């Protein structure tokens, strides 16, 4: 199959155009709530403690701290050793908590520079501990060296190791240098996921440990790869931009981009592929500070006053 190439100048311009849509208050309210329901609330630090993860889970189940009627976020995203703590904490929070998924970053996150055996064992452990979703990193070194077969193999084996858990493949676009590489890596990951029979799988921009993390042009290129795959095969792949999305405004820009790239497929009406792409099943934001900004903006729309930094608890 000939490789798709990307016109970098036009990708930048097209991505920038999504930030200039006029959005009326009513649509904005719906968009902010939708964005909140799509967040993978994330903590990925060496200093993460079980109590920090429990606190994150409370925030995930009720982002507005009981002061606003808000949807729970889609998932909490933690290191594999804390997946069990997260699952336990969420289950203890009742029906709101049980609806929140646990995502664990595995496969030697964030570098991926470990033997495949170790990385697969990492995945299996996380799934056993209760992770519903696995965020894996590809071997960027192998990809950049042109060893596409190794990358494809690793993804296929990780799909198998996941079992029932859904897989998200992190391309770490900040290390891929060009948009052409981003497109090639996206196509490769999608092809590998499809070939291995993965269900509900995602491609994801970044670990959040490398700058630049998610940017709009990069996300656009990945969304276009998902669109082209859907048009060719009729099968859906999810998208997760992660890192650097901190404000509600940015999140709305991403939703506009999602809508105009995937949301319009099959007309976008109820039951269409477009409508499916516009749900947390197929789109996520990897973020942490974003949640409180979404809460503040929703509060502004509902109460007509700007909120203080202390009005919503830190996760």
């Amino acid at each position, binding site marked *: 199959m000939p490789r798709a190439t990307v016109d970098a100048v036009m990708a930048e311009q097209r991505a920038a155009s999504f930030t200039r849509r006029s959005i009326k208050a009513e649509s904005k309210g719906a968009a902010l709530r939708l964005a909140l329901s799509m967040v993978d609330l994330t903590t990925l630090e060496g200093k993460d403690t079980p109590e920090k993860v429990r606190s994150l889970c409370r925030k995930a189940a009720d982002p507005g701290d009981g002061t606003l009627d808000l949807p729970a976020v889609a998932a909490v995203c933690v290191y594999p050793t804390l997946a069990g703590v997260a699952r336990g904490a969420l289950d203890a929070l009742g029906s709101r908590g049980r609806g929140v998924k646990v995502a664990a970053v595995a496969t030697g996150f964030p570098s991926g520079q470990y033997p495949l055996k170790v990385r697969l064992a990492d995945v299996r452990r996380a799934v056993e501990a209760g992770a519903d979703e696995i965020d894996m990193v590809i071997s960027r070194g192998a990809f950049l060296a042109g060893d596409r077969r190794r990358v494809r193999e690793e993804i296929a084996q990780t799909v198998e190791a996941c079992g029932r858990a859904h897989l998200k493949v992190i391309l770490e676009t900040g290390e891929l240098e060009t948009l052409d590489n981003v497109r090639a890596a996206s196509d490769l990951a999608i092809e590998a996921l499809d070939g291995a029979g993965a269900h509900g799988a995602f491609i994801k921009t970044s670990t959040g440990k490398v700058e630049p993390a998610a940017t709009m042009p990069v996300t656009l290129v990945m969304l276009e790869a998902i669109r082209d795959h859907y048009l060719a095969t009729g099968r859906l792949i999810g998208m997760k931009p992660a890192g650097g999305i901190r404000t509600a405004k940015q999140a709305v820009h991403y939703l506009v981009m999602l809508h105009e790239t995937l949301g319009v497929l099959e007309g976008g009406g109820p039951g269409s592929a477009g409508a499916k792409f516009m749900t947390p099943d197929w789109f996520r934001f990897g973020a942490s500070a974003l949640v409180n900004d979404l809460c503040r903006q929703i509060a502004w729309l509902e109460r007509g*006053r*700007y909120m*203080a*930094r202390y009005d919503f608890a830190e996760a």
Partner: protein
Amino acid sequence: MTDRLAVAKTYKLFIAGAFPRSESGRSEVIAGADGRVVGHSCRASRKDLRDAVVAARKALGGWSNATPYLRGQILYRMAEMLEGKRAEFESLLAQTERPPAGGPDARAQVTLAVDRLVAFAGWADKYHHVLGCQNGVSAPYWNITVPEPTGVIGVVCPPSVALLALVSLAAPIVCTGNTVVAISPASPAVVSVFGEVCATSDLPGGVVNLLTGSTAELVPHLAKHRDVDGICAADCPPELEREIRLGTADNMKRTSLRRAVDWADAQACHGPGWIEPFVEFKTVWHPIGA
């Protein structure tokens, strides 16, 4: 040909140490006393206000932790810069402001404003000793009360005496380590050029933010804003005072509403009574030891 096109200035807002136009794109013509166009000014929107509060909050940590000595030095430098821009201020005040009855003329207004900055530059490392104290307790420890800055303070200026009123209200608030978002309905040209004074005085960006435009439009949002810790207003119309009282009640902001201030009265305007409304008192016990 000696005629050349006049370079009419666009007087911008001052937010986070930068001079942005209003995000709303709105501007107004500044007409001089003789009807000629002096320049254009920005009419700030509530989103500019929101940005200014964010900038003030961000600047608070660094400014309140700076040594009182450094804050005094910077306020003194503001006085120096203001003195250096005397000709520009005098000309703008004369062109854009009708002197209030019995109020200071343009020249006197600049002189008084410089003096006021010098006065509060001096207060910066002395107010603790006047407002704080060692409390008399009959116990084996010291009991000490110290004033600390309140936080982000909104300043609502009166519609005249543009320079002197702004300086008189902002200087005592800033000298203790608070940061300021000021809204002035008075001559926008003068307010904007005062931003240039702040920008060239080593004052960290965001410590003073200046918005020109309609107080009726902006003040209700300032008063309701939950991330603002206090509001200081002078000579506000009664309906605006009402808005301030209603809005500040929501999160119990420190509020100081002054009326009929004689800005030229140095005795009345240089005292710690202008500092006291926007400090918080902290009392600590400290063991005396052996």
